[in-house]
């Protein structure tokens, strides 16, 4: 069986070809055209540019994915070899989502192959299944520029069921990294820049808040942390000044302290969720899952407290938006996929109430 995955929820245009033989995944192609460099100029994603670029990129990316798949498989892969088309329906930027959804609808019509709508967030977690046999129930943590969510995934006769058990009450953690980077004049995207600077910083140097850490729930809040950094930059005016000076150390210390504050809250709520729901597995997903300190500390903390819980973290190439995750998530929906009325099928920027 061959699934074509399409992902255009935000600033990446991506296509993947996934072959499934006796339940085993064989990723034949996974092509991502990152637009990050284009957006860096503007200090963030510019939606109009994102959608226009996606329109330009989608066909070349699809062709490249099929060509690559053909060269990797013993059989020739053409668009006629595709059995299912999985596409991200939401959440995301409406104008970007539409490019992928409309392309998928057209392909589904022309090739007469079924369409599978995929939730972008579920896909970020399910990508962990690509090389692993995962046992459910699982607790999943999605950390990205748009979301910070703890999910409980259970398996039933009708496929996987998702329940959001906690989420951010204001900013997403990736958004906090981006906005703090902006406050510190560091550029975009903020995550990799801050985590790199944090390596040589002292994480205990600045005492930053751990919002909501004491609250007996699974929710997060990061906007107060962003404001706390803002106050620090006003207090220590030279923290934003040039590199190779004494203030450079202070900048590194601030980055390390900020990063640690985020990590502490994420870990504390995750441990609470594992304790409460006693899952067999823990899954991490989303762009911030690329943060090396977060990965390291999550691994250590879960391992030491819950020895039986299996921990799954995506390979770095699967942390950011990609289409392999969409194809994998699509596979899990095949058996219980209601026939989609292609004409009525639309992109939905706000679907995160139900991840199914």
């Amino acid at each position, binding site marked *: 069986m061959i699934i074509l995955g399409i992902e255009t929820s*935000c600033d990446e245009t991506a296509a993947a070809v996934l072959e499934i033989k006796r339940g085993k995944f064989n990723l034949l192609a996974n092509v991502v055209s990152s637009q990050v460099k284009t957006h860096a100029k*503007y200090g*963030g*994603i*510019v*939606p*109009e540019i994102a959608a226009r670029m996606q329109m330009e990129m989608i066909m070349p990316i699809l062709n490249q994915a099929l060509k690559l798949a053909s060269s990797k498989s013993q059989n020739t892969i053409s668009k006629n070899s595709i059995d299912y088309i999985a596409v991200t329906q939401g*959440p*995301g*930027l*409406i*104008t970007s989502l539409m490019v992928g959804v409309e392309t998928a609808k057209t392909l589904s019509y022309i090739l007469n192959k079924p369409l599978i709508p995929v939730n972008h967030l579920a896909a970020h977690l399910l990508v962990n299944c690509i090389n692993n046999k995962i046992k459910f129930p699982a607790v999943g943590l999605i950390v990205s*520029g*748009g*979301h910070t969510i703890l999910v409980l995934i259970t398996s039933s006769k009708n496929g996987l069921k998702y329940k959001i058990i906690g*989420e*951010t*009450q*204001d*900013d*997403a953690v990736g*958004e906090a990294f981006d*906005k703090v980077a*902006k*406050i510190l004049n560091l550029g975009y995207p903020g995550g990799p820049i801050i985590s790199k600077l944090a390596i040589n910083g002292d994480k205990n140097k600045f005492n930053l808040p751990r919002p909501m850490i004491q609250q007996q729930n699974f929710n997060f809040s990061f*906007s107060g942390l*962003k*404001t706390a950094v*803002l*106050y620090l930059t*006003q207090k220590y005016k030279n923290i934003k000044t040039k590199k190779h000076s004494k203030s450079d150390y202070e900048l590194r210390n601030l980055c390390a302290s900020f990063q640690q504050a985020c990590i502490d809250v994420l870990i504390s709520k995750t441990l609470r969720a594992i304790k409460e729901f006693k899952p067999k597995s823990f899954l991490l997903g989303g762009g911030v899952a690329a943060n090396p300190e977060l990965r390291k500390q999550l691994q250590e903390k879960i391992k030491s407290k819950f020895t039986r819980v299996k921990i799954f973290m995506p390979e770095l190439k699967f942390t950011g938006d990609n289409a392999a995750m969409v194809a994998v998530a699509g596979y899990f929906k095949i058996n219980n996929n209601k026939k989609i009325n292609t004409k009525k099928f639309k992109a939905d*920027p*706000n679907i995160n109430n139900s991840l199914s």
Partner: protein
Amino acid sequence: MQKYISKSITETKKIAKKIAKNFKNGKILGLVGNLGSGKTHFTKGLAEFYKIKKTITSPTFVLLRHYSIPRDPSSRNTSGFRTGLKNLVHIDCYRLDKPNQLLEIGLEEYINNPESVVVIEWAEKIKNILPKNTIYINFKLGKKENERIIQVNIN
């Protein structure tokens, strides 16, 4: 012009409620102020005023979030503030450099709707496409750490 000084997040929310009390029809609010100046918390206050149960989260990522205003069971008379209002629309222009994008995702539909309260963060970026009756609210950091100066400009 009205000027408020808020000493905490709770007070910022209270100020939002106070301002909203005067709205009988749909309104467009343009929030202007830097990162961390209280724009999202102000919007949270509005949502509390309209008894919206859903959590108001930052719309930076998706640009626009829509919340339905529940019908107020107590407002049987026509003067009730909630009788006519059905939508709270929360928009964030932080990532925009051109206003056209918002038109593409249906801004006009909401703006020309007397049943909607439209709150726009970083509104200064799209000033040229906003109607003249937009109420601009400026947010500034005060001298003390949690202090915010909130200034409402009603034309």
